[in-house]
């Protein structure tokens, strides 16, 4: 059966109205670029739409798709940064220190911190979203916070 034909459009629109803005904000915190965040969230909605019949919890499915696409995007950005290191902008560093340091964290650490301190998710749910073990989540948060502390105490 075609996925598109079983989509309950009303349900999808309701999901959009309820979750689009929060997901864009979540994606923004993970990628640091509003336009990219919107693009990734829209793609996640496309994935949800196509799998509506199978998605027993569309909202959870949507969040997983958003987190994964943000992580995937972040890995690519890391590769690009490694090849083309950009000099830091001293004005920006002074203006918004914690946010700037947060943007330098590896994607998994950043995702774990955003999910813990913005989404207020417990470790086991973060682990499930990131596809790793609970101790790995705790380690990622610990090390991410350690780096934040080190940078802002400089």
């Amino acid at each position: 059966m075609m996925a598109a034909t079983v989509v309950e459009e009303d349900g999808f629109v309701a999901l959009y109205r309820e979750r689009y803005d929060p997901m864009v904000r979540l994606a923004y915190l993970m990628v640091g670029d509003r336009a990219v965040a919107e693009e990734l969230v829209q793609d996640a909605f496309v994935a949800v739409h196509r799998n509506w019949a199978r998605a027993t919890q569309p909202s959870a499915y949507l969040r997983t798709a958003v987190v994964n696409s943000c992580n995937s995007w972040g890995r690519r950005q890391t590769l690009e940064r490694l090849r083309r290191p950009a000099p830091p902008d001293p004005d920006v560093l002074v203006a918004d220190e914690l946010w700037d340091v947060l943007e330098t964290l590896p994607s998994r650490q950043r995702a774990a911190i955003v999910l813990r301190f913005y989404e207020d998710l417990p470790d086991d749910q973060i682990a499930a979203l990131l596809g790793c073990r609970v101790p790995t989540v705790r380690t990622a948060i610990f090390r991410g916070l350690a780096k934040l502390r080190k940078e802002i105490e400089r």
Partner: protein
Amino acid sequence: MTDDLEDQVRATLRQKAAEVRVPSGDAGLDAIHRKLASAPAAPARRTRGPWLVAAAAAVVVAIVGGSLVARNDDDRDRTVVAGGGDPVAGGEAAVVDAVWPSDDPEILRGISAAWARDPSPLPAVRLYLQDRLDTTPSDEHLVVDGDTVTVTEETDVVVHLGRLDGEIWFVERATSGLLDVDVDFDGERVTGGVVPGSSGTLEISYEADDGGAGGTVPAQAEVVVPIDYSMPASDSVVTRVKLLADVGTVALDERRLAAPDGAPVPDAPIVDAVGVWPKGIDEISASDLTDPVGTAARYIEETVGASNGIVLSDFRQGDSNSGEVEVTGDLVATIAVRQVGGSWHVEAVHTPLVEARGDIPGELWLHANQEGVLSVTVLDRWGTVVRSMPSRRMGEGEEVVVVEAEPVHKPFSVRYRFEPSVGNPPGIGDVAVAGTVSQQNTGVEPEAHDVPAEALYAGGGLDPIGTAQGYIEDRLGFWPDDMQLSPEHASETIQTVDWSGGSVTMVRHDGYWYVIESFGPVVKIESVDLPRVQLEVGEPGSVHVQALDAEGNVCAETFVDVDGGGPLSVDLGHIPCDPASIVAVLNETIAERQPS
């Protein structure tokens, strides 16, 4: 302090989220519907930035979006069927988004074996693991959670399943927390990498329309391994990456990847085994490479950066299609250029400060002609950095092996910069080495002589920092670049080197430094009473304890997950060797000592 920081993080995130102004109304919904309507044909994109998003979408939709997904590549005569078996988009062939046992729905429907329609996914998973890893875990080591099955012992794999027609099991993909497989940013390659502490060997295979192939490459944590195949020529490729970790764990990642449309294609010649520049990622147009001096200037601009103070000579013709351009001023080098098909490229770069020797195919030594600091980067033909050796001090006449002959698979090049201690301005070099590349052997090779009994690691070196770096790379799989001599523990015979992951102490023996002790800020070996090891740990994570024999082989090991700091007693169980040292690794720090 921690609570304060956490509050600050929480407040910053909420403030930043609140600043995001999402367009009101249904603009987003309209955009989603446009994407849905425009699928399957993805818009062609020629620039790198927007393409990144397209790539992310393609991968997410193909990998994350459930077992039966229409991908953004359906203009490639490939249609993925939904759970009921009907095509979701037009095309010539209907396939299931499966990696095992088949992507052909008719073949799947024709399977009469009991496992295919068993109410439980476990029989299918056991068969899959037997097929892929030659292992058959018992049911107690397989944890079912919806459409996924996790293997809990010896093998790090999560198997994701789907059911055709709601009844026939197939494997959609396999993933592992130890592996990171992704489409590279240029869209023409898949890359693989392993997480820190999981170095080993990657076995890579893939099944593409233009034939399957693969290879075996050494895997280092955080070093991206390019898995080359012709993505644009294949509509969908099953990529299988198996990690045989040094610690004995086997991990598997297997997935179907589709090449996004519109990957950027450079129109300049991409240098392969015959030269060093431009490479695949260099966005150089052929129109920039129409004369030899301009090509040399562009090379300097792209690889060194600012060209102020750098003087290029006129072109010195060699044979009819090649010659040299001399670099003087703030940089010392000779750039050899060659013309192929109307465009020039850089064939090699040499400096009189360093002599590059590659007498054996696949091997390269650099010999310092005066004292100075050498930095080296090893690049594959696409320009991916597969190895880097930051800032090594070398004495006059000293040699270092950058890569040592070891059959792997692709041509590569070695790009280096040498900063002399006195006299000359820096020199640069760029040398192509065809055929093999090693990502492992980078240390100063000592001449053969006795290793002191107290040494934990047989690799001695002339320079204490280089020796400690080689030791950490051997044990942890990465090259630490923040090491410095500790002024408090320095003498002619003993030296401690501090780095962000702890301290390494060495003794000098016959002129060479050898590691005798290592400890980290969050893991310390308090005592050893084999098979028990008493540790002090300082942060949560997975502690990995090994017993090594005199040759550095692992003869016993165990992993223990810890949620916090404090004393930890670890039992290594049966140890089938006489261990020369005990190693404890927590996250990216290491402690090592000899058994008392």
